[in-house]
Each structure stands twice: as structure tokens, then as C-alpha cells.
């Protein structure tokens, strides 16, 4: 068991190193550097940057150096935990991400809780009461949730919010609280802004998970051990919850590997549409503007989280499913 964990950890370190190389190479693939992207943005707002000014910027950002030198500089910084300054923000990358990180995690965790809180009971209900009216209704909502792109859903909700309820659109705070120090009023304001993005984020995931849970559970319910349990007189509730549901949970545990990076940069499009101050839009924007240090740090972070999450889900699977645990020990 211990050697298994250690071996996995060793592999994880090598994987992370490979991720740094791939990250760096991919980010430098486009024939565009930060200064070109910046000049284009300035041009697109009716102003201009002269070539002499662009030269000065390239010198200041060290973009004239060969790629290998840039990579080595970056790697030796990252190795000691210094992620550098964002080109665009002019602040340490850790601060720029840090500003948004906990709101992002709060929002994503909330969305995950909502997703699971809705998907698990509904999935169980739909499986146990297959082809009942309730099953059909949930199936219908589920398919609609899968089919409607959630950014469209977000736009519609915002427009309705603006026209009908006259609410401020987008963001996580009302304008009067943006600058205010933390207070209960501000927390309350945040709490008022959270449900809509959480629901939108949760919707598509919920629909998907309901379908998975329903299908898995239906498979399990037809197994002979369920019939046996029933025959031996166990209560219906115990029959279903004790074994089939537990077995049907496997796919949930194996998605944990992707849940971790998701909590940090899930659903970029919705965050952009809803103007949420989260890491997702930051990543998208850093890639468009070729803000190298910021972009590579976020991608590296996602890579590390994926590696770590996969490790975690392996361990979790061993824990909830004795079959895997025993297979491993042999």
C-alpha cells in the first residue's frame, strides 16, 4: 500500500516536470508575443503604439531573449516558488491569482455541492421509480439542461434579471460593496449574488450526473444480490442505499481527478459571460494577451491539481470499492 502511494508520488513529480515543458512550449507556439497582442489591443481601442515604444516594451519584458533562456529563467524561478510578475498586471502572479482564488473555490465548491445534492437523490429516484411521471419530468429537465448551452442560459437569466427584476448584472458584488472592507453586509451581498452563477454552473453537470447515476443504479438494481437482499426481508430503503447506491458511486469518485482543477478554473465561458471575478476568465485572458508568466502559472497549477486529483481519486476508489482494493493487493 505504502509503496504504491510512493510510486504514484514519484510518477507525479516527473509528470509535473513534463507539464512545465509542455506548458512553456504550447504557450510560445503562437507567432504572437505579449507586446504584439498589447499593441493590437491598443489599436482596437483607437490609439496606437509606435515601433520604438514596442521595442522598449520587448526589452523590459525580456522577450528578446532566446526561448531556452526564457524557459530556464522561468523554471529556476518556479523551483524556488517565485512565479514572477504578470506582464499585464504588473503584480506578482501569485497575488493576481490569489485575489480571485478563494472566490473561485467558493463558487465552484458551491456548484459541486448543488450538483451532487441535486443529482444524487434525483438519480436514485429516477432509477428506483423508472418510467414514472417523476422520472419523465426529471429526464426531460435533464436533457434540456444538457442541450441548452449554459452560457446562453446565463445570458437569458441576466437579461431577465435586468428587465424584470432590475438587478445589477454580472459580478459577485454590488457596486457599493466593491470597494468596501469586509462586513456582514458585504457577505450578505455576496450571498445574494452567488446562487445564480452557482445554479447555472451546476445545471449542466447535474443533468449529466443524473443520467449517469440513473444508468449505473439501474444496472445494479437488476443484480441477483439485490433480489436476494429483498428476499431476505431487508427494508426497501436499506436494500437500495446499502449496496447498489454505493456501487453506483464509483464513477463519482473517479471524476474527483478532474474536480480539483475544475474548482479553480471551471466553466471559463460562464464566468466570462457573467463577469465573475474568478480564475477562469483570468486564464482565458492571459492566453489571449500572451501574458506568459500568468498563463503558465495557471496552467501549471491546473496540471499539478489534475495530477494530485487523480492520485486522490485512485486512493478514494480503493477506499470505497473493496474490489479494487483487493485487486491491488494481489
Amino acid at each position, binding site marked *: 500500500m505504502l509503496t504504491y502511494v510512493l510510486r504514484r508520488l514519484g510518477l507525479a513529480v516527473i509528470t509535473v516536470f513534463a507539464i512545465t515543458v509542455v506548458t512553456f512550449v504550447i504557450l510560445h507556439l503562437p507567432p504572437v508575443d505579449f507586446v504584439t497582442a498589447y499593441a*493590437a489591443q491598443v489599436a482596437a481601442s483607437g490609439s496606437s503604439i509606435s515601433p520604438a515604444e514596442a521595442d522598449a516594451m520587448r526589452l523590459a519584458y525580456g522577450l528578446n531573449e532566446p526561448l531556452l533562456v526564457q524557459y530556464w529563467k522561468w523554471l529556476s524561478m518556479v523551483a524556488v516558488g517565485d512565479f514572477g510578475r504578470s506582464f499585464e498586471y504588473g503584480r506578482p502572479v501569485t497575488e493576481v491569482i490569489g485575489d480571485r482564488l478563494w472566490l473561485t473555490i467558493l463558487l465552484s465548491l458551491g456548484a459541486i455541492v448543488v450538483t451532487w445534492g441535486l443529482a444524487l437523490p434525483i438519480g436514485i429516484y429516477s432509477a428506483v421509480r423508472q418510467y414514472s411521471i417523476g422520472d419523465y419530468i426529471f429526464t426531460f429537465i435533464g436533457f434540456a439542461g444538457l442541450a441548452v448551452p449554459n452560457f446562453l442560459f446565463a445570458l437569458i437569466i441576466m437579461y431577465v434579471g435586468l428587465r424584470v427584476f432590475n438587478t445589477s448584472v454580472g459580478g459577485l458584488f454590488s457596486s457599493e460593496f466593491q470597494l468596501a472592507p469586509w462586513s456582514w453586509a458585504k457577505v450578505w451581498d455576496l450571498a445574494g449574488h452567488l446562487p445564480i452563477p452557482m445554479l447555472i454552473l451546476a445545471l449542466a453537470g447535474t443533468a449529466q450526473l443524473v443520467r449517469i447515476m440513473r444508468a449505473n443504479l439501474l444496472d445494479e438494481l437488476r443484480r441477483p444480490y439485490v433480489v436476494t437482499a429483498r428476499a431476505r426481508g431487508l427494508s426497501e430503503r436499506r436494500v437500495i442505499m446499502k449496496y447498489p447506491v454505493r456501487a453506483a458511486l464509483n464513477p463519482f469518485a473517479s471524476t474527483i481527478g478532474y474536480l480539483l482543477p475544475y474548482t479553480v478554473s471551471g466553466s471559463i465561458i460562464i464566468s466570462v459571460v457573467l463577469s465573475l471575478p474568478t480564475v477562469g476568465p483570468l486564464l482565458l485572458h492571459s492566453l489571449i494577451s500572451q501574458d506568459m508568466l500568468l498563463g503558465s502559472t495557471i496552467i501549471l497549477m491546473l496540471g499539478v491539481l489534475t495530477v494530485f486529483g487523480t492520485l486522490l481519486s485512485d486512493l478514494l476508489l480503493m477506499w470505497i470499492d473493496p474490489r479494487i482494493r483487493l485487486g491491488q493487493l494481489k
Partner: protein
Amino acid sequence: MPNLSRRGLLATLAASPAAMALLTEAARAADLSASGLVGELQGPTMITDPAKWPKTFQEAPMLAERVKAGKLPPVAERIPAEPMVWQPLNETGKYGGTWRRAFTGPADGENGNRIQSSDKPLHWSADGSKIVPCVAKGYALSDDGKTYTLSLRKGMKWSDGSPFTADDFIFWFEDIYGNPEIVPTPTPEMRPRGKPGRMVKVDETTVRWEFDVPYFLFEDIMAGDTAMGGGQAVRQAAKISFGAYAPGHYLKQFLPKYSSLEAVNARAKQEGFENWVQMLHFKKDWELNTEVPVLGPWRTVRPINTAIWLLERNPYYYAVDTAGNQLPYFDKVQFTLAESLEIVNLRAMAGEYDEQERHIDLGKLPVLLDNQEKGNYKVHLDLGFAGSDFMFHVNQSFTGDAEIRKWLTNADFRRALSLGIDRDQLNETFWLGVGTPGSPAPGESMPQSPGPEWRKKWSTFDPALANKMLDGIGLAKKDGDGFRVRTDNGERLRLQVIAIAAFLPYPKLSEMVADQWRKIGIQADVKEMERGLGFAKQTNNEHQLFVWNNGGTELLYLFPTWAVPVIPGAAFGPDYARWYSTGGAQGTKPEDPNILKIFDLYAEAAGLKAEGRTHNAQEIWKILVDQQYGIGTVGQSPAGLGVRLVSNRLGNIAARVCNAQHCRTPGNSHPETWYFKA
């Protein structure tokens, strides 16, 4: 206005051509011309006669408190002996309030730089036609055009109370501009005909520029949105270090010259910067550093790299109104981050911004109008002066494909393409009919306009003539689908168009033109590109047709990029631009005599007085329109920065502001004279 809520929804969700057609009808119903959306150019009046200046001064309550607490000297000591005096547009304003605006992140610094633009040495009048005093009270050019003298205001101060003098110019010239670690490439604006100019201090309030050759154009450069004349806010942000002057008393502590390399590097390390240069770039940037002294009406109190960029009044701002009130009237300016432009437009409709012209989408005009009452704002359309807000820049130095090059450099081919464009259809669909169709020449109200007859030259819709011309130049052969074929291998002739979504949905507009070109047998493939990538391709000379506007070219010598190939990266012919800008050292010399003629006229103009410069610009425009190097469609519209939403609570608001790059929209309508009526 009819109820547009359903159409409004469409506009909010997507700008598909079908939806746009609906919007066009709605806009027509509103009858734009009679609706009062387009007003007269207006602005506050500058009082230059000292006899009419106020003798006593008042200040904002928030500053009066600081004076009372002993933290600030009295207002009379803060205002220069020679202030800038404004008679506000309508009435004397009231102090207070926060001007709420939207911004899209730290790369949107221009959002604030433009309203800070009274830190420019000189500026332009409200209608954009004349150079007027600003930081400097005036300038003079010698008869031979080799010396330019700038006169500063006596007793003027930086926002920290230190005197602003000629020394700040010399500091910039010697210690910033003269240091290759900070400025690796000198600006051509300081090197007429390649010969470097010098800056000399005459006395405390007088600076002189000396050049080896006549350089009359320098007067426009010092007033333009240029490296030299742009002002501290824009030219010393984003690691750029131009702007003609800098706060020497503050920045000296970060330069090795005034202590030692070890000392400044040690300080840099301590403050978390790689080296002293990086530290300097941060320290001189008013968007990031709340401590750097400035001259404009505001100073940053919360930096641009957070969710809110907050500005507060500069207690030493050098302008007053005719009643003696120190400007600005607003206490603060607050920019709130919006992650997408949709959010900016939705929030604007909800009345969450007090004044916003930036990032407002012309395509949403009907919905914006529909929400005027609810959002308590009024919509103004500020028409631009540039000839084309959407045009095809034809790459003259393209070498990627000999056959394509042959046609791109053929004048009749370009003219035929231009005659194949139905500009009225474009105008109705994408400009809601408010643009002016025609050639790329600047609007007739601009001095450099070659004349009204050049608006229609080769720029009408005449597919029959276009077809005849294309047949005549050897492209008569067509394939089974009716498209003209290449002369080298008989395959279909395909033109590649690079379109980036900016100002207007350019890729969609290009598709419409490509569709119109089918009627003249021309196949155009529109490639939508991400902004940075599109520009990289263009700079690398890889484009055939590049879609953009020609904003700024109404002042040809200040912003030539989108008209003539004299600055590297010009879509007209990047390789020719390289040749011209390096004096023939790099790039390729054009063979086309018309381009060489343009180069001659352009180079000569820098040494000519205003009249001669204007004449040369008109001659250049005649060649440009006749040769159709750039194919214009619709211009002089509010497509860029021209849809302005103003809260009904604001006073002293112009019916129309100068919408042009040299005007630093809305900078030259002087937001420091706006105020909250209630």
C-alpha cells in the same frame, strides 16, 4: 420609440445579420437624423486673456478639510500664477460625486489615460481643428523651422506640490530617453530626416528643441497623441518611457546615476523587482503606482490591476473655472472591471455608468435607446472624421504568391474590387444608416480632405463596370461556378481576407462584401483571426487583404499607419514601410512610382509650414483614392468610441464631442468641467 424589448433581446444575445436587419428598421423608425442623437461639436471655452481670469480661488470641500487639518497648503498657493481658465460649457458646476465608468482590465489603461489627457504639452480645440494650450501655455517655431520653443506656466506644480519646471523636460531627455536600458530605440519624432534633435533649458519655464533640418511638423507632434506629445499618463505607462517630461524630483531616487547601481538594484530586490529598470517602469506608471506625481486632473488611489481602478482629484491641478473654482468638479472617477463587453453594455443600459463612450456597441443602439428612460441616461452619437470605419488594406508588398501579387498590385484590379462593393447595403445593415459611404479620404470638414469629388471616386457600386475592367485586365476566364480563374494554373482565383472582430463585427461585414464580390466573379475567403495573431500576420507581411478602419488618418502625419506605409507594420505594405522607415537599410524598395511619389510628398511635409503640409496631404489622398491601395466602404460614423451614454444627472455635457485619436476622446471635451447637477 417603439417597444423594442424582443429585438433588444436579439441584439443582446447575438449580432447575426438577420437580427441586424431588424435593428436597422427599428433605427429608421426612430429617425436618427431628427432624433437629436447627432449634435453640434461643443466644449468649454478656454479664457486666455489674463484680465478676465478670476482673482480669488475656491476648492472642493474634501480639499478644504485637508487644508484645515494642515495637510495641504491653501488653494491660492496650489494654483499656478498662470492657470488654465475654463468657462464651462453651460454653467459653473458643483463639487462632488464619483464618476462611474467601466473598464476591461489592466490593458485598458487608455480608458483613464484619455480622461487624464490634459497632461499633454498641448491639446486640440473642442472641434479638433486647432492646437490650443494645455500644460504649456504656448509655443513658437523659428522662421527656419529648426527651433521649437515651449513656454510653461509660472508656478505650476506636480500633484505632490513640487514645482513643475523646464528641469522635468531635461530630466526626461537626458536620464530617461537618453538611457538605452530604458529606451532602446529613439523615436523618429525626435529625429527629422534621421538627425537627432536636442532639448535645452532656456529658463525655469522655457524649453527649446533644436533640430538640424527644418521641422515645422513638430508643432503638430507636440499636440498629437504621439510619443512626444501624448503626455505622461499614456506615454509613461505599460513600460513605455516617452512623453517629453517626467517627474525628476521623484524618479531620481530610482536611477543608478543619482546613487549607485548596487543601491538601486538592492532596493529593487527589496521591493520585489528583478532589477532597477523593472522598478523604474513600475514607479513611473501612474496606472500602477499611487505615489508617482502627475499633472492631470486625477491621480490613481487604487491601481488598475485590481477589480476597481479608482482615481481621486489632484489637489494641485492647474485649471480653474471662470468663477475661480479649482477643477475638477468630480471628487473621484471609478472604473469597475467588466470581464466582457456584453456586461459593459448591459450595465450601461441599467444606468450603472455616469458617462461611457468606450466599449459601447453601435449594433446595440436600438436597445440602448429603448432603455434611456429606465436607465436615466441620454445617448449621443459622436461621428468620427476618418474616411472609413471598415476598409480593405491591400498588401502591396505581398510576396507569398506571384499570381496573387500580380493582381493586388494592379490598380484596375483594386478599383474593380472597390466598384463591386454595395456600400449602402453595408451602411444600412451594420451602421444603421448613420455612416457615410465612399472612399477612405478624410471627412470634408478636415483641412487635409482632398475635396468632396474624391468621396465617390472609384467608390460607388457599379458591378457592370467592375466586370468589364476585370475582363479587360486578363481575368475574363471563369470556372463552372462563375468565378474568375488564375492565369498561371487555371484554378479559381482566391483572395484571402484577414478579419479581426474590433470596433464592428468585421468578420461579418467582410462576409457580406465577399458575397457582393461573387457578382463580379471574385472569390474571397474571409479568415477570422484572434486579434494578436491577425496583427502578427500583418506585421510579417503574410496578409493579402487586411480588414481594419483608417482611424486617425484624418491627421495624416500624426497617424499615418492606416493610410501610407511609413511606419513598420503598415497593412498597406509592411516591407515597403520597413524600407522607408530605415532609410533603405532594410525592406524592399517599391517599384510602383505612385508609392514613391507618396514617400516623397510625405518626407517633404515634415519640413513644410502648415499650408504646405496640408497641400501635400491632399495630394497624397488623391493618389491613395485614385490608386485604391486601401478600399474604403463606410466612414465618418460613431462606430469607434462614438456611442456615448451620459447620465441625465450630469451637467456641462457637449451635444457632440470630437471623436478622433488626436482629440483623445473624451479628453479634449475636458471631463474636469463636468459635474453632477443633483
